[in-house]
């Protein structure tokens, strides 16, 4: 059984590995700081947000360890952006390969996702350093983190399947997605605490939490930084509404995979 699976996915796995390795080698080619940029990019964004929103606008005064809280949100969001933005062009960008070789198309999308996952793990190690220096008390809730990362991985991969297959026919998708990502950054409680929204409207804060990215980031903060934060489990306690973000992830991923599978035989001639 295991051997059969291994045989069936052997070719995919060999290609996947080489694509990830190649991406790793080529990513920061010609830049002086090289792979350090993987860390510097989210850290720079974090620094800007910290100075503007925490120092001047006094966001998150009520939340303990708000800098770490903010950094974790930025790191997880950056992962989602990296995977999906690169995902849009992943199939078209490998058009030359598609037209000359019949290999499982999904490998290209998965490879982008795996590359970004490696970066995410490195960034999470930096978050861990912040956690230690900030004197955050870690709890057993940390055991949830791998599951939360898994959900994020699946959701971002699912979106990439959809976007990359759509982009083959509709070349507007990358512009549309850029705008949506910008909007998503402000619609997701990354730089502001959910409690701030709650002061204006309880419904709005609940509505924001339905977004899987909000649920993922809030759950991760709960697991790593502080239990004094709103998650779907606390906000929707006692009702089944907390299942909505997970349902969205499942539906998006399955539908995207089906769409991708349906369209992939035509990639070679449509690109």
């Amino acid at each position, binding site marked *: 059984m295991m051997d059969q699976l291994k045989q069936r996915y052997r070719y995919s796995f*060999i*290609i996947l590995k080489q694509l990830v390795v190649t991406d790793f080698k080529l990513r920061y080619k010609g830049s002086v700081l090289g792979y350090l940029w993987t860390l510097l990019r989210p850290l720079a964004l974090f620094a800007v947000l910290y100075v503007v929103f925490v120092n001047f606008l006094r966001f998150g005064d009520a939340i303990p360890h708000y800098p770490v809280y903010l950094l974790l949100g930025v790191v997880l969001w950056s992962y989602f952006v990296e995977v999906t933005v690169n995902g849009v062009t992943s199939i078209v960008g490998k058009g030359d390969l598609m037209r*000359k070789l019949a290999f499982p198309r999904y490998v290209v999308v998965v490879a982008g996702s795996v590359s970004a996952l490696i970066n995410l793990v490195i960034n999470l190690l930096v978050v861990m350093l912040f956690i230690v220096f900030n004197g955050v008390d870690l709890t057993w809730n940390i055991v949830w983190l791998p599951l939360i990362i898994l959900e994020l991985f699946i959701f971002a991969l699912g979106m990439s399947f959809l976007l990359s297959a759509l982009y083959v026919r*509709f*070349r*507007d998708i990358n512009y549309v997605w850029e705008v949506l990502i910008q909007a998503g950054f402000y619609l997701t409680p990354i730089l502001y605490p959910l409690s701030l929204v709650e002061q204006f409207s309880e419904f709005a804060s609940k509505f924001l939490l339905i977004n899987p990215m909000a649920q993922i980031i809030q759950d991760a903060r709960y697991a790593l930084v502080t239990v004094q934060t709103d998650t779907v489990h606390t906000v929707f306690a006692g009702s089944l509404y907390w299942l909505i973000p997970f349902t969205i992830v499942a539906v998006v991923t399955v539908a995207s995979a089906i769409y991708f599978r349906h369209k992939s035989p035509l990639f070679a001639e449509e690109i």
Partner: protein
Amino acid sequence: MSERIAISVNNVSKNFKLPHQKVSSIKDIFIRPLQVFRGNKTVEAQHALRNISFDVREGEFFGIVGRNGSGKSTLLKILAEIYQPTRGEVSVRGRLVPFIELGVGFNPELTGRENVYLSGALNGFSEKEIDAMYDDIVEFAELEAFMDQKLRNYSSGMQVRLAFSVATRSEADVLLIDEVLAVGDADFQRKCFDYFKKLKKDKQTVVFVTHDMTAVREYCDRAILMNDSRTVFVGDPDKVADEYLKILLPKNSSSSNKANTIPKEGAKITNQNLVLKNNKYHMDFTIESLGAKNVIAGFKVSDAAGRALFGTNSRIMQKSIDLKGGKVKLAWSFDDILHDGLYDIDIVVSNDTLTQVFHKIERAFTVRKASRQRTPYPVYPGITVEIDARSGIDV
């Protein structure tokens, strides 16, 4: 040769949709919503393949032959599962490896070594497997000193050598080889043909796309001839090569005698004729004076690729042509040594020092030849051979 079928192509058709107005942006949904949602009525189907059927047996060297645009490459891509057939079925027994192009997946920013591993992976080899064959690959490509340099610093010849060296390692039940493999310098072409010979000796199943009728006759066990997206003939490669040349000719002869301007001074050529009789070509033409008195006339025979094969002129043959009577008729004859292929004959008349061409008729004649000898080379009739039976016996 085994009777087992390696590839079975059953009634395959392929249409490409060519939308007259390509719908490729969301803007179009607003501008032409009906077209987009009714499935775009302006789509025109281009029939790239129509009802193609054939089998390739195991151990067979199978040729796909046809003019540009006849559907060869589409067929190859369907066999490689890069395209899906619109109708019909293709079944392949075992693992199929396509060489549509050399160096697929090569990245100029990586070193030679890294590219070997990358393109090896695309051919289905794990790192361990490439480790084992790496030295052989480098040695065959003759690039030992360059493997740690970036590929973009390679000459194109070096890149092709490396790609070919990796490609020839492929272990497949069926190999698909496109004609692009036969590019490169003479040395590399020889390597290619050596590789083909080895494949043939090893009874490897090969599907081979080509324009080169000599290669078809030499390597292929059977072949398919395609024209206008349809099968013309499947079977004996000699017959395929003959039919291919028949298809090719009308196209070429229509272009003959074009761009030959009639001169206003010196001399001109008229009334040219060519006949083949008793294995000899008899060619004659008339030269009319337009002022010149002494001229030199000659001709040149070239193959379809434009390579000059042989020719001569009146000075080489130590004949002088005097036009004081206004016109002369020249009659030439030469042995029919032409083998398979298309040939063009240019005729020319110039001044008596060969410094000024008065009149040149390019492609005055186009000859299509399907020889009975079936040799891949012209048979020169002046060769003699003596067989001495005694010299083989020790006295």
